[in-house]
């Protein structure tokens, strides 16, 4: 501990020297505040500045004032992503080698597979607090529930936190019969009830504003982790936000993906050569759906859009408040989604077995499911794989999977750390694990070798400061790689290349190789055509496994999926003509009424 303090003091002195100031100077420049805004399950193309038709003016304003990153990778699911962000350490070492909900029998009891952010790692808030920052958190945690694992124990001075991975936005209703009630903490105490008029996105914002106001008196900078529940399903949103887009999505996911792709190209997010990923084969071509089905399915996207806009509104409230108190100009904003958009039907996964305990629980707590009730307490609605692919335009797959649609997300960084042109776009290869080293550098501290007497595993991220200073295009060299393993699916990216192994039928239960710079939609497997590259990448994979304690799970949520999904065939628009061909209208001059029978 003494060593840590010494290092901190040295680093702080170093920063002060860098800034050319002494601690006694009247003109001491305050270190920047840091606000991480994490939108749960927000897709790559869901913000306006990344190609969306959804109105997100406040997020767009952050983008216009900062930099957009197009090659930013998270993990494929929420707690693995969050654990990497907060610890800077690979999931297989930080406790999220698998999600708590899916720990495989062969992973039980292994270090790195605890299912929560283990105590062998330190966290951003712990180190920033030691470096003189106030540390605040609001929103979803999903990294452990026992007293030694909650935000207060992991470095947050103030918090208002949902400890679970999901739940109602309106109350404490949770998702399963055995975990019927969501757990919340406030300033380290478990809440017995929620504040009056609780609505997740609004309350989290209110709480954070209050934390900031109450802490600003001493002049210390703050680090705030704004971990919004939105836009994760169920799509709960206030009445006035539900009907902003009625009928606007009736034309469907195929058209919407094309429109977003077009806008992404216009914005410069994607190159002109970019193509759309194949529509998931079990999702029907939208044009063959009946109007009623389009209206029902489209309603889900209407609600998602409303939820995104509500989220944007509350982000705007926070930004406005920081402007009002004079802290905006000195605040770094880092905004992104934690994984791909959600295409799975969690309600079906949890309660789809009739007669089960969870089915009964859903009947009791989550059956307010008339279409007009969507958004209300007790309603459960998510938009499914078709719209998830829209959110992930132009990529394939979605949350949980290691296709680009599962792990690539939109990233905006703005504030005093950015020296690049405002509104610019960067295509450097970035990882969520980079946030830890970046923020430590910003705060003028460093990653210690040990913390509280425990040797720390190595950070895997790379600081973004040079990229943001305009001194580099990527924090990574062409030899650096990023790798993932979750639920038995595996992937590794180095430079333009991506190695991928996924369960059938989304994958082929074998290694595939893609050039994601040329083919971001991962349409063309180049493994057979590039055996040397494949071999080289497999070598990197072995290196990753060895260095990061990767234990492939003996069970997976995706096992047997081949038996649950329809057989996979290529998706060709307009096939079969049987159901796509229009009525033939003969030339008018050749048309006639029937001739009457002559008597």
């Amino acid at each position, binding site marked *: 501990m003494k060593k840590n303090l010494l290092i901190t003091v040295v680093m702080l002195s170093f920063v002060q020297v860098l800034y050319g100031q002494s601690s006694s100077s009247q003109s001491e420049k305050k270190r920047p505040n840091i606000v991480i805004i994490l939108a749960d399950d927000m897709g790559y193309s869901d913000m306006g500045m990344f190609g969306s038709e959804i109105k997100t003016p406040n997020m767009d304003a952050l983008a216009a004032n900062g930099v957009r990153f197009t090659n930013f990778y998270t993990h494929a699911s929420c707690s693995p992503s969050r654990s990497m962000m907060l610890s800077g350490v690979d999931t297989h070492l930080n406790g999220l080698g698998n999600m708590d909900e899916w720990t495989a029998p062969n992973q039980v009891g292994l270090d790195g597979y605890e299912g929560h952010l283990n105590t062998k790692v330190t966290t951003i808030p712990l180190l920033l607090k030691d470096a003189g920052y106030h540390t605040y958190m609001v929103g979803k945690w999903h990294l452990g529930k026992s007293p030694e694992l909650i935000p207060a124990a992991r470095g947050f001075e103030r918090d208002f936190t949902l400890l679970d991975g999901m739940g109602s936005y309106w109350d404490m209703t949770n998702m399963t019969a055995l975990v019927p009630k969501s757990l919340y903490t406030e300033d380290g105490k478990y809440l017995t009830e929620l504040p009056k008029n609780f609505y997740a996105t609004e309350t989290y914002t209110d709480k954070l504003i209050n934390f900031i106001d109450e802490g600003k008196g001493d002049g210390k900078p703050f680090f705030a982790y704004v971990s919004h529940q939105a836009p994760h399903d169920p799509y709960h949103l206030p009445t006035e936000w539900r009907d902003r887009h009625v009928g606007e999505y009736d034309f469907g996911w195929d058209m919407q993906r094309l429109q977003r792709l077009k806008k992404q190209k216009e914005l410069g997010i994607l190159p002109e050569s970019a193509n759309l990923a194949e529509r998931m084969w079990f999702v029907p071509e939208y044009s063959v*759906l*009946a*109007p009623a089905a389009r209206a029902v399915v489209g*309603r889900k996207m209407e609600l998602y859009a409303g939820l995104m806009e509500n989220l944007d509104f509350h982000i705007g409230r926070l930004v406005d408040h920081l402007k009002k108190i004079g802290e905006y100009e000195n605040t770094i904003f880092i905004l992104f989604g934690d994984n791909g958009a959600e295409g799975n039907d969690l309600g079906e996964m949890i309660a789809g077995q009739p007669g089960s305990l969870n089915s009964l629980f859903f009947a009791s707590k989550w059956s307010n499911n*008339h*279409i*007009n009730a969507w958004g209300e307490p007790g309603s459960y609605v998510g938009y*499914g794989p078709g719209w998830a692919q829209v959110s992930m335009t132009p990529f394939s797959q979605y949350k949980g999977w290691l296709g680009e649609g599962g792990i690539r997300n939109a990233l905006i960084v703005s504030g005093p750390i950015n020296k690049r042109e405002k509104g610019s776009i960067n295509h450097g290869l970035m990882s969520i694990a980079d946030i830890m080293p970046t923020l430590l550098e910003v705060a003028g501290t460093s990653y210690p070798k040990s913390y509280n007497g425990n040797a720390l595993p190595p950070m895997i991220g790379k600081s973004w400061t040079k990229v943001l200073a305009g001194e580099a295009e990527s924090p990574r060299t062409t030899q650096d790689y990023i790798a993932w393993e979750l639920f038995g699916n595996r992937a590794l990216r180095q430079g333009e290349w991506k190695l991928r192994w996924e369960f059938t039928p989304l994958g082929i239960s074998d290694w595939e190789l893609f050039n994601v710079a040329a083919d971001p939609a991962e349409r063309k497997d180049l493994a057979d055509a590039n055996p040397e590259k494949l071999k080289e990448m497999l070598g990197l994979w072995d290196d990753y496994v060895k260095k990061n304690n990767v234990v492939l799970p003996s069970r997976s949520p995706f096992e047997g999926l081949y038996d649950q999904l329809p057989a996979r065939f290529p998706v060709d628009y307009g096939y079969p003509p049987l159901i796509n061909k229009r009525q033939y209208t003969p030339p008018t001059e050749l048309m006639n009424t029937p001739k009457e029978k002559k008597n």
Partner: protein
Amino acid sequence: MKRYIPKAGFSYFRNFAFLAIVLTYCLPEATFAQGDGARFYWKGLMGTNAIPVIYNSMGGNANPFDPSQKVIPGSNFSASMSMAGYAKMLPIFKRSAMISVLVPMGRINGEASLNGLDFSSTSRGFGDPMVQFTINLIGPKPIMNIPDMIRYKPGFSVDLIGSLAVPLGTYDNTSPINIGQNRWYGRVGLPVVWQIGSWVPGKRTTFEFVPAVWLLSDNTDFVGKTMSTEPMYQIEGHLTRDFMERVWGSFDVISYSGGKATIDGQEGTALNNLGMGGTLGYHMNDNMQLTLSYLATINDSKPEDLKMDGFRVTLLFGWHPLVEGMKRLKGE
């Protein structure tokens, strides 16, 4: 995942069918003392057809078949009547509209004293058929298809209604008690439906009211005399609420005023009465709805006050070709 689209696309059809019929409960139940009834002016899918069968049991000191509700002090009417009709919803001038016809039939027993003469009479047969036209003035656009149905919420809607009864019913000019009225009559009104809260089956709440004026021509052969009736004003109000997805109830209030009757120059008194009651509705299946109502006058202690109460049972059968087709595809 495999069932993702079928689930999203087709499981709602049942609800659509249900809604289509539920919202078709818009038929002129011309039981004047009881008014139109709650949820009478809700809208349905254009093209919906409906057949109501209504049974009324009423009693009091006025002829329930007489739209003027002329009180005959000391009289005691008891009537049981049935009505059957047909209604069709259709868009006119891009607004929701409905045309309906209702034919009353039944029997009425009465004991009355009129101008010193005691009558004890029974009448049976068909009443005066009534045609009603309803068109929406303010409110959502017509429900033209299933997507419109899905998105329908009444919000605040105002209709214009016009009714006309044709004097074709059974009439005996020797008796003051008749099913047919031997005169033309009708009304003009502005029914209002006001949605309160969300529009979710099981939770729907509405406040509804119907201001209307009845206009009646003279009956030139009322027991050999001429009966004239001044315009009569009707205000009907309902506070309705779903109890469950298929069960609802309402608190009903109805008031009549005006309508002073004159028989050969001898003036009667104008109406000024108030009735209260309740309704229970049950959607039996996609095609049928059953409602039970009771309404009774209050402040009716004076002999000249209208004193009347009645039960009403309504069975409504509705259908729409599209909905029926979908059900056939599902094998129902």
